[in-house]
């Protein structure tokens, strides 16, 4: 067996390299060197992104345990960019006195979750998949409970790890049943061996709920708002965007690649889940006063919309899904960026605190507005296009009713997004949030997001480029 083939796993290896370097640097760097920790990290990570942003031909490693497909490069790059933005936004937070020492572990944890997602994405085998899943979620728990002197953080951490493991144990139980019924955990073999016997269906359900949990679809979403609220805002944004993005991609891959024969089972499941996720999440969102919870529910309903792309199970659906994730990364991170900087400086997260924000911080509120419009799917911002393509993908397979319900829900979602905009622009306030001078990395991240929101939709090249590798499996 030729171990050199392992060198093909470029993304993973380079990321591991970055992690190890940072770890060593963090430990051994001298006082005056250490203050360059973050810039160096940014640079390294940027290099890592650039190195791995070019798709290669598909290949397999370790007898199909690790399967690569060009499409994965796109989704991984998207996740990378998202991570970079999150790190930029977290820059200020990590420069605080109490966090200075913990910088290293923060980066290490983030990168290891990212690594887990890589493995999850390009796994060709349930074992690797499961390892990836856990690698992605266990450090995440540590991140959620990152600032350990906050009750909320600790509570959120506990809720997250316990329910996460609960979910993953259920799904690993499902995997075991699949294994029992088929005798293999390799996706390529399973595709034919899974024939839809009752046991397999049972097993599939057990397994799938683990992913539904990660995507936080109703009714497996209950942890989401609490954890989002409790965690530090940058972590929340990471949680809401990156891990969710990877999970939906994986779900799509598995459904088509492994459970293709069960399509008659999983399409109705997703149909129902999409409907109740969008609706319930919207109905919860309109009442939220805390913006982090608010965005949590909004992200749940966004997940519901993503399901519309998955349910089609076609190449066009795949493309739309990746595109949706891309847009969602920029929109959501823009919103969270504004949120984080304001919470960082003033500790205000309530909707009412945002009253009259436009008078004092026009730029921030402008970015926030763009982000919310994009999330609501308003042209000419990117969100409109991604939503449209997702709907088109679903209608293409004849899910007219589903799309109709989803569209009716866009009205509700528009309503609550407008509530925030109303607070920022319309409502006057005696004590508006004072002017905030944001630091350069944050500015940079927000600029990137704004550019993304404004331009991704208008430049069709991106979508077409993704579409080239039509069916990324």
């Amino acid at each position, binding site marked *: 067996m030729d171990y050199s083939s392992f060198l093909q796993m470029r993304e993973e290896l380079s990321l591991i390299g970055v992690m190890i370097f940072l770890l060593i640097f963090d430990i051994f760097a001298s006082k005056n060197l250490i203050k360059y920790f973050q810039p160096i990290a940014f640079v390294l990570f940027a290099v890592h992104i650039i190195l791995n942003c070019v798709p290669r031909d598909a290949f397999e490693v370790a007898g199909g345990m690790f399967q690569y497909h060009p499409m994965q490069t796109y989704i991984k790059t998207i996740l990378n960019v998202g991570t970079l933005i999150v790190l930029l936004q977290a820059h200020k937070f990590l420069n605080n006195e109490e966090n200075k020492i913990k910088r290293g572990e923060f980066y290490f944890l983030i990168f290891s979750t990212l690594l887990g997602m890589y493995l999850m994405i390009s796994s060709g085998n*349930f*074992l690797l998949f*499961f*390892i990836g899943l*856990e690698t992605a979620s*266990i*450090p995440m*728990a*540590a991140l959620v*409970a990152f600032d*350990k*002197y*906050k*009750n*909320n953080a*600790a*509570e*959120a*951490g*506990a*809720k997250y*790890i*316990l329910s996460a*493991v*609960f979910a993953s*144990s*259920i799904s*690993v*139980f499902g*995997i*075991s*049943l699949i*294994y*029992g019924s088929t*005798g*293999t*955990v390799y996706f390529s073999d399973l595709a034919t061996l899974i024939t839809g016997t009752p046991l397999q269906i049972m097993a599939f359900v057990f397994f799938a709920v683990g992913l539904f949990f990660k995507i936080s679809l109703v009714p497996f979403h209950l942890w989401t*708002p*609490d954890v989002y*609220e*409790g965690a530090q805002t940058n972590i929340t944004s990471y949680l809401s965007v990156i891990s969710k993005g990877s999970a939906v991609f994986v779900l799509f891959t598995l459904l088509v690649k492994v459970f293709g024969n069960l399509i008659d089972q999983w399409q109705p499941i997703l149909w129902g889940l999409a409907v109740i996720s969008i609706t319930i999440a919207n109905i919860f969102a309109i*009442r939220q006063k805390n913006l982090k*919870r608010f965005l949590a529910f909004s992200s749940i309903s966004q997940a519901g919309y993503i399901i519309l792309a998955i349910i089609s199970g076609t190449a066009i659906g795949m493309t739309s899904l990746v595109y949706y994730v891309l847009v969602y990364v920029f929109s959501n991170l823009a919103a969270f960026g504004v949120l984080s900087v304001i919470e960082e400086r003033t500790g205000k997260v309530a909707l009412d605190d945002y009253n009259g924000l436009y008078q004092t911080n026009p730029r921030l509120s402008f970015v926030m507005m763009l982000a919310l419009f994009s999330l609501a799917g308003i042209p000419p911002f990117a969100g409109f296009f991604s939503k449209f393509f997702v709907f088109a993908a679903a209608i293409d397979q004849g899910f007219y009713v589903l799309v109709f319900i989803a569209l009716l829900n866009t009205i509700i979602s528009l309503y609550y997004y407008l509530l925030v905009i109303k607070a920022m622009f319309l409502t006057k306030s005696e004590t508006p949030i004072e002017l905030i001078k944001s630091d350069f990395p944050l500015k940079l991240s927000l600029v990137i997001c704004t550019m993304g929101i404004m331009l991704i939709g208008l430049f069709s090249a991106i979508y077409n480029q993704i579409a080239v590798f039509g069916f990324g499996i």
Partner: protein
Amino acid sequence: MSELFSNFFSGSIPMEAYLGISLIMFFAGVYGFLTRKSLLMILISIELMLNAADINFVTFNRYLYPERLEGFYFTLFTIAIAACETAVAIAIIINIYRNLNSVEVGNLDQMKE
């Protein structure tokens, strides 16, 4: 049934027995997760669930597909992962104890609605 007993006494344990055990363990774990008040007990219940899955893997591998070892490896990795998450979970629980002076799951409801 009788044949099961006869097998039992004749030494070779039928697969169903293992599966039964694992199923019982699994739902015992679920039950514990849902009912226990202490975070630690909940953690242990999760361990039960994971181990149930492990037993499944091993059993299936041993009885149905003895020629390949995927099940065994899966079990090994699962055990390792279970260890990791227990570690993290314990850490968080300690943290909670430091903040709240209790590990009652009922106290974890600062954030709701």
